[in-house]
């Protein structure tokens, strides 16, 4: 979390936290698998009222950013949601909203944004593929222009909240280049196959497109011209994911520090042993480093800075590894209780493990970073 939030941003953060605490979001996380979509729709509508869906939506379509910086607002919310391993389509809805607000036609904006902003409709981004390694150059899902319509063929994976989404923003390759198309999930030929995932709170599906046909006006931002939008969405996805992980580890760490003070062994709090407190100090260095690079990357993306991509890769690599290190150390310090179903630690570990692989593994991002640096 940035240390120089404006008053509006600080208020927004507090409002998010109060909403998530009052609705006992963390307490519900174990039961997410038992419900449709993993969350209660009325909870999500209440979240929309708090502002979880508003930041990328223009005011005339029912949204608005509290601070004038939509990326900052989203990062603040993402971190709070991460703290309580929240379910719900926060991530996909905001990515789709940002894409539609940025490059959608007036008709697309009017059709999609008010519903998503109100928490009534869900949209998601179908980006990853089983073999593409999150690399658009290797997309196997193809789009074809045919008689004023678009035909889509292939399979997308790891599509968050696809099981409850009305609309899918599908990234495809074509002869003309990368394109993005809005596809109603009820379209003939769309088959959504929900998967199990490490993260109990969130749902991911495999989505098959079998000769799916939609009108040409469902294309966003021009046929074959989606490269820039795609990069923007990817960077945004990554900074939200990183902020989510930062929220998780902040909470896991606080709980562990408290435990180290409360738990007595050999006649004194275990946190008084240097063997443990020194490790906790190292974890704190990692945590603060994660916060620092998360702030740096999100500010660079928000302000469209020249080094944004470099910082996003850097943050993704660093936070992916360190977030897992921190939660695993938290578990170690808790001892056996930390590995039980009733304790929250496994929820935290599941979340950062999921975040680590989504939108590219740290290994892949390190590789991309080295290419960017020319080393």
């Amino acid at each position, binding site marked *: 979390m940035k240390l120089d939030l404006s008053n509006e941003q600080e208020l927004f953060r507090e409002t998010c936290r109060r909403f998530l605490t009052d609705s006992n979001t963390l307490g519900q996380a174990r039961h997410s698998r038992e419900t449709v979509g993993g969350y209660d729709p009325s909870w999500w509508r209440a979240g929309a009222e708090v502002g979880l869906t508003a930041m990328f939506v223009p005011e005339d379509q029912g949204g608005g950013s509290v601070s004038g910086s939509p990326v900052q607002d989203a990062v603040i919310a993402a971190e709070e949601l991460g703290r309580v391993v929240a379910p719900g389509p926060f991530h996909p809805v905001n990515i789709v909203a940002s894409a539609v607000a940025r490059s959608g036609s007036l008709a697309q904006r009017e059709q999609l944004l008010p519903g998503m902003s109100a928490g009534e409709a869900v949209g998601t981004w179908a980006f990853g593929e089983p073999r593409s390694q999150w690399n658009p150059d290797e997309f196997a899902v193809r789009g074809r222009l045919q008689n004023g319509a678009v035909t889509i063929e292939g399979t997308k994976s790891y599509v968050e909240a696809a099981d409850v989404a009305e609309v899918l923003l599908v990234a495809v390759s074509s002869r003309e280049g990368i394109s993005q198309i809005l596809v109603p999930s009820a379209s003939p030929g769309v088959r959504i196959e929900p998967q199990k995932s490490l993260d109990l709170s969130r749902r991911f599906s495999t989505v098959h497109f079998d000769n799916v046909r939609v009108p040409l006006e469902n294309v966003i931002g021009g046929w074959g011209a989606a490269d820039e939008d795609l990069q923007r969405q990817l960077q945004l996805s990554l900074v939200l994911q990183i902020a989510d992980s930062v929220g998780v580890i902040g909470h896991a760490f606080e709980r562990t520090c408290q435990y180290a003070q409360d738990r007595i062994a050999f006649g004194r709090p275990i946190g008084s042993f240097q063997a443990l407190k020194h490790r906790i100090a190292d974890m704190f260095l990692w945590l603060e480093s994660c*916060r620092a690079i998360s702030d740096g990357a999100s500010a660079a993306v928000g302000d469209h800075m020249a080094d944004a991509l470099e910082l996003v890769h850097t943050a993704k*690599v660093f936070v992916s590894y360190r977030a897992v290190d921190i939660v695993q150390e938290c578990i170690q310090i808790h001892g056996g209780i930390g590995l039980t179903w009733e304790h929250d630690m496994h929820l935290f570990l599941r979340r950062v493990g999921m975040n680590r692989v989504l939108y590219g593994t740290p290994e892949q991002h390190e590789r991309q970073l080295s290419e960017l640096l020319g*080393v």
Partner: protein
Amino acid sequence: MSTDLDVFSEEVRSWLAENLERKSDENAVVSSDHEERALQARLAAGGFGGLMVPVEYGGRGLTSDHQRVFARESAAFRTPVGFTVSLGMLAPTLIAHGSEEQKRYHLPRMIRGQEVWIQLLSEPGGGSDLAGAVTKAERDGDSWVINGSKIWSTGAATADVGMCLARTNWDVPKHRGLSMFALPLSAPGVTIEPIRQADGESEFCQEFFDDVSIPLENLIGHENEGWSVAQTLLFHERNATGGVGHGEGTEGGRAVGQGIEDLRALALGGPADPTIIRRYLSEIFVASTVQRHLGRRVAIGYKTGALKGQWGSVLKLGAALLAYRRAEIAFALTVADGAVWSDDTENGPVGADWLMSKTLSIAGGTNEMQRNIISERLLGLPREPSFDNDLPFREVRERIGRSV
């Protein structure tokens, strides 16, 4: 960036261009003490010698933001590199605890490079346990008489004044019987011996004090309250080592979180495997970038008041771990050429850096001390039980069988 900082950075840029030499391969060698002082005098004449020091003591009374701007702008120029201790750590300590006369006398001299200060804290018998110091100061009429020895002081051979922690009361617990003094290194009875390090160089010294007599007014702060002066000093030391505060940029641009250009130059054209080069350079780029952002975060937190207390320890621990890893990677990138070299190659220093790569993990408070500070003072974890905190120091010494 505010307009004020824009104006300032314009002022800095034009002054630097007219008054200082740009760094180049030829002039990059460490300059002599004489030249260092001359460079510092030139900075002071231009109004850049003590940016954060109040105007009444010869400084500019500006903020850490200005210091950062100056550090950024001056990184490409030849500036003094040896006054981080004097200006980054001891000047702010003197501002906080010195008497009005001490500040008016010493600070302008420090800023002009006429007076260089070092710290005299660690002793041969104790480094981490600083409050266990046994160098003693006794009052004798109009003077304090100092006896004992200090060690690990950087640059003592060329410095003028040492800020020296000495015991003035043995009958109270250890933290409450210490006082801080300004000790002129040219005083009779002071002997300075260089310490030869593992790499053969001598960066540090040991000092011996044999009935060194100094005026009463050289006491800094109050008698027996030296520990709080030492705390202030350590606070600034950690910040400076971590790259924030008064010391920012005083190491001539070799700042914490520097880039990877030197490592890239080292690796390219060398015998290392390209896959390994790529992996190591990416790793160190990530680590350096993160450390730089951590410094920025702490600086912002200090400024907005969101962070208070010993955050310098977080930065210092991060910087030390990074420096160690960096030297390790540099050594790996040279393959065997970092271990065997002829005098006309660049790899000798890589091997030497590697040999001394634990320096920052030990100097200025070990990693272990930083971890204690972080866990106890920032996170509130309980201390390890110890027997020596509440006993009169004389009794502690007796219990462990040492003389007073």
